[in-house]
């Protein structure tokens, strides 16, 4: 049977993505659907994983009866919404700094990327527990000026968040290594001729920043935002991870309930990312051609 050129190409294409496709079906799609299915049941682990349909009961319980689920969820979202902007701004700032023609640039890049390599979950947790997460130079001055007191006095209810952040600041900054790299790559992709042309037209430095640098960076910004959100929700030693693990593998071994919790978590993340992506059409500027 002679295939047309297009058909042959299509076949080659399928051959190349075949491993991925198998993996996707086996290790992603099927568990995904299974998890959805399980979440509507209770699983009896003793009787060989038999399922018993309970409808939305798991979901209802997660939101109404369980006193741990909703607060943990809210905390995860709140942590993310505080951490991600901090990471993004800090990474951008650091990327600018390391983009300069300074001696020892490679050393600084090496340092900023180091946490990516050694940030294993437990190690980070231990460091945090031993107080290495605070800003070293600040910890003594903080004790003297009673910064926490000041914060509470001026910020009111938001103080708790700021305080948490300051305690975790080093660890938050540690998770910004990849973002710094992405920004760097983006910065170096902006051609200098744009700036020169703008200067010839009399642009001031601020204008250059807002009208050239930021827009040219916006695709990378989008990638960074999505990556940071996903990272914040999945990577660090996350209370949600612990919670779901607790449901599933300790205590009562309630796999159906754990699946429901996992699904709610996923939906929250999905909605957030969807919102980001949809809004990106307004603020992302693609220079050149888009395929």
């Amino acid at each position, binding site marked *: 049977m002679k295939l047309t050129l297009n058909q042959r190409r299509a076949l080659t294409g399928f051959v190349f*993505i075949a491993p991925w496709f198998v993996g996707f079906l086996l290790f992603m799609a099927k568990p995904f659907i299974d998890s959805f299915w399980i979440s509507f049941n209770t699983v009896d682990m003793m009787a060989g994983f038999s399922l018993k349909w309970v409808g939305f009961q798991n979901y209802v319980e997660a939101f109404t009866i369980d006193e741990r689920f909703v607060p943990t969820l809210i905390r995860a979202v709140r942590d993310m919404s505080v951490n991600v902007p901090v990471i993004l701004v800090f990474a951008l700032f650091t990327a600018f700094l390391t983009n300069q023609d300074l001696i020892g640039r490679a*050393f600084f890049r090496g340092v900023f990327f180091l946490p990516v390599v050694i940030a294993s979950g437990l190690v980070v947790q231990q460091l945090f527990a*031993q107080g290495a997460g605070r800003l*070293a130079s600040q910890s003594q001055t903080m004790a003297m000026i009673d910064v926490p007191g000041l914060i509470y006095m001026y910020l009111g209810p938001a103080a708790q968040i700021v305080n948490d952040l300051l305690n975790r600041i080093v660890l938050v900054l540690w998770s910004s290594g990849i973002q710094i790299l992405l920004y760097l790559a983006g910065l170096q*992709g902006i051609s200098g001729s744009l700036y020169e042309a703008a200067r010839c037209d009399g642009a001031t430095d601020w204008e250059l920043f807002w009208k050239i640098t930021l827009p040219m960076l916006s*695709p990378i910004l989008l990638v960074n935002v999505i990556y940071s959100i996903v990272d914040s929700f999945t990577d660090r030693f996350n209370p949600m991870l612990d919670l779901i693990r607790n449901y599933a593998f300790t205590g009562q071994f309630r796999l159906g309930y754990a699946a429901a919790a996992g699904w709610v978590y996923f939906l929250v993340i999905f909605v957030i990312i969807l919102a980001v992506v949809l809004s990106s059409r307004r603020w992302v500027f693609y220079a050149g051609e888009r395929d």
Partner: protein
Amino acid sequence: MAKVLENLRAKTVGAPWFLIYRRRTENLFFQLLMYLILFNIAFTFLYPVLYMVSTAFMSIEDFVDPAVYWVPRTLNWDNFQLAFLGMNYKVALKNSLVIALVAAVGQLVSCSMAGYGFGRIKFPGREFLFLLVIFTFIVPPQTIIVPLFILYRKLGWIDTYYPFTVPTFFAAGLRGPLFVIIFRQFFRRQPWELEDAARVDGCGALRTFFRIMLPLSKPALVVTFLFSLVWHWNDFYEPMMYLMKPQNFTVPLRLSILQSSLNEVTGGQAGEFFNEPLIMAACLLVVVPPLILYLFFQRHFVESIERTGLVD
């Protein structure tokens, strides 16, 4: 031309120039300021590491001694010995190494193939399938961990290397979709003339891939291999789920049961030895292998992302 720019530069006012683009400034003050900020940030980054190293060498007396801040009085290697024994380091190291290396290779092979298919070959449904790839990147492991666990249980893969290694040969595994995306972006940027030339010379798709595209994709290969290695080494969540017997644990996992393992080693006296310096020594043992890798290949880690053309 330079004079024109000079005049322009003198006239501009407003934002800190360093926000714009890179150039070496003649202004010493700004340079010093730059270095000051950078060093400050670098120190903040390094502080936990320095803390870890210095604490690991302390004996407990040094640790509680308020006069001792960074440098312990004596270099105490006991903690390392104890941590080494307590974590059953040799066995755990082997476990971690096998998993990390095999997984990295697996993702190299499968993600590059998938990326090539998505990036260079037009086939129906390509866009939609790639959307699925992006989708899988977003799904948190918590959502699918339960059915995956059941699956592995049925396959008898619990407590083996398989749950960590087999999926990586199918572009799944830790952050697998990310690597597929990276490869796809990379391959898309390659000139089409290369493939045309290869076809004229009689290469089929497979040979084009192996002989031409793959060697070209070294930056992406480096990124995938290094990151996969490091991420699998540091992974804690999946080993925690799928490994039951302590002798199969990976190194980070051993850290988590350190206290109880200590009991075995010290004959029930763990409480006496389990203190912060010991924990730090154990953490160092977890961290040192990827750290060594990083020290040797730091340039590759940092620069390779730029070279893959993931950006623009």
